[in-house]
């Protein structure tokens, strides 16, 4: 019979098409006991773990329909969108919805009286892996499948090899297929076939990390390490390679940490360098200008949220001019109302700025409240990306570093290339002579104070993604920024930069050795000793008296 197979194939095609069109819950070829899985997921921790382990174990053989269904219910469990009503489980569209669909039959039902199970840590890890397996095998687009693979990679030891093979054979995206092949290869570290083991060792060493080093080191206890010279040399070479890569990665991490801490110090201190340098005002309210900048950023965020919610991700950029102007205006107001009268009395101005700082902190506390402000974190300041070995670049710190670099360039341009900058430098070097030459020193003072406060406001923008924003946040920065300015030499921006890099780097280098408490003490003692030898700081502006 010639047409038999053809007709049979046609029927199969129809069935397959039907399974695509029909909701997964109604697919005909179920081998997974869906009711039992739903009941188990609503049970205690042990039942949940057993059921999810079963899903993962059978994921290489299960039908796509079953897998997609399991993926849906597991993700619902992760997001607490699973409600348990007696023996049955309901999948909700969102947490807290009033009705959902029965997980096993797909019929819509109200949720009243249901409870949503809370996952324990062990169960959560299992559910994440199993749901990753489901999205790797049944995900409609590459992104979903890639996320699924990433979830599997986190616990590669628990993933059955057959699952990876099935995914590799079904995968259409070349990049993802290569990733799968590499993972499947490295999963064969304890394979019986020596050739596959060698390939696995090579594959593991190609993605170096501390965890890879531990995995490879464990093989030294293997019998083959003593008996098989090829295995031994391959393992030793791989270990050396991973170790080198990990130490390079750690070196990069130290550099990055030092740079990011330095950029925070620099931004906090840049404004002070101008205020302290030009007017000799010991401004204890500098930290509060940072706080005002951060609150202005919050204001911009709320305004954007209300007026143009589509542009919410851009609020940090929109906040730059607003935070600068807000802090600058507050600074100018304080200069005009209070400090103007105290220029010849440094101790008085110290006390006055302290009072201003208390006033600002408590004013904000009364007006806004003292809890931490809630910021929406756009993707460019949240999370990070592993760059090399264990070195992770975190976006919020990178944002701060870039921000500090731009601030530095702008400050230098304004000081060296504009008439205002010329005036500021003239007044810094010799106030009386500048006044004789017709520079309105009072006006320069006010603008410079505004500029210095505005720079602190900018620091507030950059710090929002890193630190908690509350009325007291500024207090943490005052001491550090004075340390930086005094060490750098009063009145030089370059000195401030070098001092920030030095203090940031020293802290980061000492911290892993002696702990964070000792790092602070050692750095402070170092600065005191240095200032004993060189009271004018690293870079001193020559001035005439």
């Amino acid at each position, binding site marked *: 019979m010639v047409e038999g197979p053809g007709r049979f194939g046609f029927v199969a095609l129809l069935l397959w098409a039907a399974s695509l069109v029909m909701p997964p819950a109604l697919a005909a070829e179920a081998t997974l006991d869906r009711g039992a899985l739903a009941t188990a997921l609503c049970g205690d921790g042990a039942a949940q773990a057993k059921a999810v382990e079963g899903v993962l174990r059978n994921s290489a053989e299960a039908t796509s329909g079953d897998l997609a269904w399991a993926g849906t219910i597991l993700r619902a469990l992760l997001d607490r969108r699973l409600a348990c009503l007696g023996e049955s489980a309901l999948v909700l569209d969102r947490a807290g919805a009033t009705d959902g669909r029965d997980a096993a039959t797909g019929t819509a039902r109200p949720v009243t009286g249901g409870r949503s199970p809370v996952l324990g840590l*062990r169960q959560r*890890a299992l559910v994440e892996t199993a749901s990753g397996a489901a999205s790797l095998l049944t995900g409609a687009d590459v992104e979903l499948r890639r996320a699924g693979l990433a979830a599997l990679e986190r616990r590669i030891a628990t993933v059955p090899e057959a699952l990876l093979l099935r995914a590799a054979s079904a995968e259409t995206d070349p990049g993802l297929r290569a990733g799968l092949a590499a993972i499947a290869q490295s999963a064969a570290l304890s394979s019986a076939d020596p050739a596959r083991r060698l390939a696995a060792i090579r594959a593991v060493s190609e993605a170096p990390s501390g*965890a890879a080093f531990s995995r490879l080191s*464990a093989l030294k206890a293997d019998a083959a390490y003593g008996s098989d010279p090829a295995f031994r040399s391959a393992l030793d070479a791989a270990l050396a390679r991973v170790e080198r890569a990990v130490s390079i990665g750690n070196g990069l991490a130290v550099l990055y940490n030092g740079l990011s801490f330095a950029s925070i110090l620099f931004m906090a201190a840049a404004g002070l360098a101008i205020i302290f340098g030009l007017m000799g005002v010991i401004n204890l309210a500098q930290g509060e200008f940072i706080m005002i900048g951060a609150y202005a950023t919050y204001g911009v965020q709320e305004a954007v949220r209300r007026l143009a919610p589509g542009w919410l991700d851009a609020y940090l950029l929109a906040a730059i001019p607003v935070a600068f102007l807000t802090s600058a205006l507050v600074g100018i107001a304080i200069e005009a109302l209070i400090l103007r009268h105290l220029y010849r009395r440094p101790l008085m101005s110290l006390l006055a700025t302290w009072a201003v700082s208390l006033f600002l902190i*408590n004013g904000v506390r009364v007006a806004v409240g003292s809890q931490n402000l809630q910021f929406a974190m756009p993707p460019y300041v949240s999370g990070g990306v592993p760059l090399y070995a264990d070195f992770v670049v975190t976006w919020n710190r990178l944002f701060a570093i870039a921000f500090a670099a731009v601030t530095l360039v702008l400050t230098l341009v304004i000081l060296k290339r504009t008439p205002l900058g010329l005036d500021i430098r003239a007044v810094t070097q010799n106030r009386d002579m500048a006044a004789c030459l017709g520079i309105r020193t009072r006006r320069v003072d006010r603008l410079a104070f505004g500029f210095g406060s505005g720079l602190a406001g900018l620091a507030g923008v950059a710090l929002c993604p890193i630190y908690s924003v509350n009325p007291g946040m500024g207090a943490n920065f005052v001491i550090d920024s004075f340390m930086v300015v005094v060490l750098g030499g009063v009145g030089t921006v370059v000195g401030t930069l070098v001092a920030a890099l030095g203090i940031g780097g020293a802290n980061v280098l000492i911290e892993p050795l002696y702990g*964070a408490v000792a790092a602070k003490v050692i750095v402070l003692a170092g600065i005191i000793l240095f200032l004993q030898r060189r009271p004018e700081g690293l870079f001193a502006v020559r001035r005439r008296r």
Partner: protein
Amino acid sequence: MVEFTRRSFLGTAATLSAPAIIRPAWAADTVKLGCLFSSSGTMANIEGRLNHVVRMAADGINAKGGVNGRRLEVVTSDPASDWPLYAQIGRQMLQQEKVAALFGCWTSVSRKSVLPVVEQNDGLLFYPLHFEGDENSKNIVYVNSPPASSVLPAVDYLMGAEGVGAKRFFMIGSDYVWPRTINKQLKAYWTSKGVPETAWREEYVPLGFSNFQTLVNQIRSFAAQPGGQPIVVLTVVGSSIPDFLREFANQGIRATDVPILGLDMVEADLEGLDTAPLVGHLNCWAYLQAAKAEANTTFLSEWAAYVKAKGVPFSADTVIDPMVSAYDSVQLWALAAAKAGSFDVPEVRKAFPGLSFADPSGYTLTMGSENNYVARGVFIGSVNEKQGFDILWQSPDAPKPVPFSPYG
């Protein structure tokens, strides 16, 4: 004829503006309660709430007619997160304001500085925080749990099969007495369980520390070493908690890789954080906002109404364990004073044994005759996406408190 002095005028005005139910009590004598909670400094965000809770509890008792026919009057202060200042203000409150009881302190270092003051003046301090234990003064009522009924059950959970089977421990704390004592006891506990010394690391940071990059790098390399499942035992306090959590999430570590057990972590520390990448981290307290109890529903709505009515500068829908414990403190004191029929400290103290009170956590608090500790339930919470904690485990009943740790 009524003579209108300035004072009586104010009194009348206040009487008129007060809700009807309080008015009769106004005429009677009042008894003063003192609060020692900071509304500025590093502890302000969390400690500041407790002043308002004590007021709310006192208002509630006054609305029911006060204690022993007297109306409660709450005196607040601001020790500004400055530990010696707690002692100084405490002394003033006892000697000048003649308060019947003090409610206060968050950090153990502040409690330790108030301790000699209450002992010299034979005052009473109700302390609403879970803490390191190893202390038993007749002048302090320890309303929250010592480690045996808070930290150890949580560590046991994480080490057990139901948790993650933790084998290795990275301890990070702020550098003062509570974290150091807790970690000392934990190390002795692990030693008693046969955990080798190489399986833990201990790091301390200054109070208010915020730059956690290097430490989180160290945690990642600690986690990569062989030897079994690692966890982080976090005892940093105040503003360091959210800063640590943010850095931890940004470096890509999830709770399923390395879970954090945050011993001082409360709902308020998650305000302002994106908690989606933090889901699954744990804390342990004697109360969680998600506790299922009728008294909890009442308490939550009472707090929300109070925040709205008084314009309190804190979130109306965040309630944390120390708030409930401060509320319980006032209730326990009121019960004891009513039972004693007196406000004298020795009389009130004699009334403590046998007191019981059903608090918002759903457990019944009891006090025994051996010490001034209060038996509380135990909750283990798990961070959820909505900046709160889900209840992962809770004890079947309120275990009897063990003041002195057999470990360390």
